[in-house]
């Protein structure tokens, strides 16, 4: 029996929380270099809250869009900082993008990644190259669009998306921060990868992993 799109999405959020728990100390360490050292903790609180909110959802009746909007509220109600509004807006936008979909095929995944990155961009008003999580989400979304356009297989599609995300995260080390707390460091932020970008790449890896292990 094939796993419903709703359940795959719920599993994605479980995987995201797991990967954040694994990376928590590393993320805080990266943040300690150019921020205030709490990014791992913030993300951990957020994704735990998302999964707590999702555990109250009946996955047999909920739509994929319900999963994303529940995740958005869970994240927003638990996380302040900049991360709270940014991911909450991204997930809410993704919920809208998947409103009429009950399949989580690659086109739907492309729309979801695109909506998350647009939501983050609109809320934070950052641009590419500002040394933020957008330097991961935007190229990942672009890779997804290109992947669907060129009919990539599922593993190749996710490989391309993951690569774009990882390259984006690595590239932030060569950028000067212009947004958020790290912006105050200006050129002193050079050489340090942006913790929000690194966590974004980890989240995308978790999304890819959950999608690739989807029972057909």
């Amino acid at each position, binding site marked *: 029996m094939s796993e419903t799109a709703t359940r795959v999405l719920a599993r994605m959020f479980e995987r995201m929380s797991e990967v954040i728990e694994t990376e928590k100390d590393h993320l*805080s360490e990266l943040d*300690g270099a150019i*921020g*205030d*050292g*709490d990014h791992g*903790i*913030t993300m951990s*609180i957020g994704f735990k809250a998302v999964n707590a909110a999702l555990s109250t959802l009946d996955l047999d009746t909920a739509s994929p869009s319900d999963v994303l909007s529940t995740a958005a509220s869970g994240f*927003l*109600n*638990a*996380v*302040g*900082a*900049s*991360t*709270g*509004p*940014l991911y*909450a807006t991204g997930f809410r936008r993704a919920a809208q993008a998947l409103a009429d979909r009950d399949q989580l095929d690659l086109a739907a995944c492309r729309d979801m990644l695109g909506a998350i990155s647009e939501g983050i961009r609109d*809320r*934070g008003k950052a641009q590419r190259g500002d040394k933020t999580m957008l330097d991961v989400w935007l190229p990942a979304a672009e890779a997804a669009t290109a992947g669907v356009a060129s009919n990539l297989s599922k593993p190749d599609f996710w490989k391309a998306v993951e690569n774009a995300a990882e390259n984006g995260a690595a590239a932030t080390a060569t950028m000067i921060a212009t*947004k*958020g*707390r790290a912006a*105050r*460091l200006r050129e*002193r932020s050079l050489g340090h990868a942006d913790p929000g970008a690194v966590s974004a790449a980890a989240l995308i890896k978790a999304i890819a992993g959950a999608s690739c292990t989807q029972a057909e």
Partner: protein
Amino acid sequence: MQRFINDPDLVVEDTVKGFVKAHSDIVRLAENPRVVVAREAPFAGKVGVVTGGGSGHEPAFIGYTGRNMLDAVAVGELFSSPTAKSFHDAIREANGGKGVVVLYGNYAGDNMNVKMATKLAAKDGIEVATVVANDDVCSAPIEEREKRRGVAGEIFMWKIGGAKAATGASLEEVRAAAQKAIDNCRSIGVGLGPCTLPAVGHPNFKIEPGTMEVGIGHHGEPGVRVETLKTAEEVARDMVKIVLDDHDLPEGTEVAVLVSGLGATPLNELYILNDTIESEISARGLKIRKTWIGNYFTSLEMVGATLTVMALDDDLKTLLDVETRCTIIL
């Protein structure tokens, strides 16, 4: 770490619990445990006054809750903006039917969360106005004042906004008074030692012994220069110069002065600084109406101090004299 904590992850929760127990004659906790409310708020027919910010700055922000000051305060994690939900709940708690003004500091997270909370409050039919504090001189040049951070000048903004609201003024009048207060404030911080978030366990920035960071922010944001630690007299002179050079005040202007420790600097050193601060301000032909000295706006156990100078006019003088009843004497 030589710290009085139970669980690093519960620092904020435990702080708020102890605070509310100590000051139950002045404040109460909202249903949302991350919102502290003046005991009798909301006041019908009065503009509600709200702020919020990360924890670790005590007595800011919660300590300024009370009569003729803040009606409700949203509490964030250490050094991290409160959630949009907490700001929204604070707005609701403060709403006496005449609108609510949110007076907060210029940080990316606070800006976004207040914006989202304002939208949520609009759905409840609550009119919200905002003033964003940007008094930290070294965080951006004067021509980019909108990029400057909010620091201890926020206290004057709350004091003036809270006092104006207590007169029964309209939402727009309260907003304008608070805006004028922060426009008239300039602040500078000097850091001598870093601070540690308990859940992180090590200092989140470095200040080498024997040096100081001039222009440091409230979370250790780097200042304009790192230099050899000088005498209190030289440091104070530098602080006054940076603050007043940014603020072209006519001779004879009356000012309010706030010297705050950043958490781990003993009070006596603040008095040592003030000895020179007072002389320097007076030497520029300004008249000090009142000085506040103490730990008014801290950064955990950071070693250092901030200086805030607010230029006064007749309106601000009247409002500054309004008595407040919060946990901090102002």
